[in-house]
């Protein structure tokens, strides 16, 4: 049976250099090792991010995907957005305007998984009708 824990929301520090990455990973690392980790990183405070910070985000994403979980970025500051675009990783992450939106997205059933117009049994009834006429 697949189980998943709570959704973890964490604030990314203002400056994401090598030292801050180390401190941040000490906190976040154990959470990534759970079963199907679901993580939202609040990037609203980010003012500066070195390549070590971008590398850390990619490593975290890799870890959660390995464990069948997901990592989403929320409330990106313009600075964070510019750096992620510059480093060509902006499209790798799923991003949301707010943390609430990101959390909600974990619980949402994808729209394309649910038939929107005709119920699944419509085709069965149609086929039955054709069979009846034929007999």
């Amino acid at each position, binding site marked *: 049976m697949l189980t998943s824990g709570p959704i973890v929301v964490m604030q990314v520090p203002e400056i994401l250099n090598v030292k801050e990455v180390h401190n941040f990973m000490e906190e976040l690392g154990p959470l990534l090792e759970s079963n199907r980790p679901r993580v939202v990183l609040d990037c609203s405070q980010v003012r*500066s991010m*070195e390549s070590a910070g971008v590398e850390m985000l990619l490593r975290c994403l890799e870890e959660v995907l390995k464990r069948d979980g997901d990592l989403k970025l929320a409330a990106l500051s*313009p600075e964070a957005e510019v*750096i992620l675009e*510059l480093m060509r990783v902006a499209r790798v992450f799923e991003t949301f305007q707010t943390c609430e939106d990101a959390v909600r997205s974990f619980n949402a059933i994808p729209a394309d998984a649910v038939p929107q117009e005709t119920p699944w049994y419509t085709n069965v009834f149609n086929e039955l009708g054709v069979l009846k006429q034929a007999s």
Partner: protein
Amino acid sequence: MVGAIIIGDETAALEDTQSPSCAGSCRRPWATVEVLGKAPIARLAESLRTELCDAVSVIVNDPQDGQEVRTPHPSVADLAAARFAEYKGDGFDTVLVARCGAYVELDAAEMLSFHGEQGSIITRAFAGDGPLDLWMVDASALPCTPLMSALLCTRPAVYRSKGYVNRLRNARDFRQLVLDSFSSRCRLRPQGSEIKPRIWNCDGAQIDRSARVVAPAFIGRNVHISGECLITRGSNVESNSRVEFGTAVEDSSILSDSYVGIGLELSHSIVDGHNLLNLRHNVSLEITDPVVMRKNTVRGGDRQSLNGESRQMALSSTE
């Protein structure tokens, strides 16, 4: 005789506080920043020298090597006043004073004849959207000090300039000037030679065979564009800069002496050393990671001398 004093001070570029107005951390006025091979202030000096003036003096705060060497504004004004006095002493009849904040395509000869017709002590140039910091002055009639207040307080004759004007108030204006030049909306022509339609290349520029430069684009003096790079959509890379392997530069300006690292995607931006201005997000960033962006300390000349050395080595090995 006609003389000219061009003042390039930072106060001329600080009118718009809404967006980043000056290049880099040392807050250079945009008019003193190299654009398509030469700074607008140098272009103005050159055009005045060739078209009208017998002598041209440029007074500018020029911070060297990123240090904040600032001549306080009164000193710049004092220098201008001193130069004005020298012109007077040397018997110059008319002096054109330009406080260079904007890029202006001025018909100086027409302004001079208008000034003569008006018989006014001072004639000030105006564009469609207001006054320009350009005055034509009767040297004998105006006191030398304080020059700027004398210019601003005296009621001038109004000369309407019909030429192209870019106020260069902020980074957006700077980018607009680049694009206007590429599309021939102004007379500012890129330096160097046009190697393909609307692609300009200056002396010492090295573009790797696998790099792609899409018109319109400008590659400045001693610039190095590495393999698999893409320079596109009206981008300009100014002198002594280096763009590393696989980086895409789109609708951006890389100012002189800048290093842009490997595999980046630079769009709608201006890079000045380790400073990055993104115009789409209106964000100014200081990149602290030298692998990503920094001031380029390897000069084109150094590279040339290295190349010279290696060529010599190759020659000696074949001898």
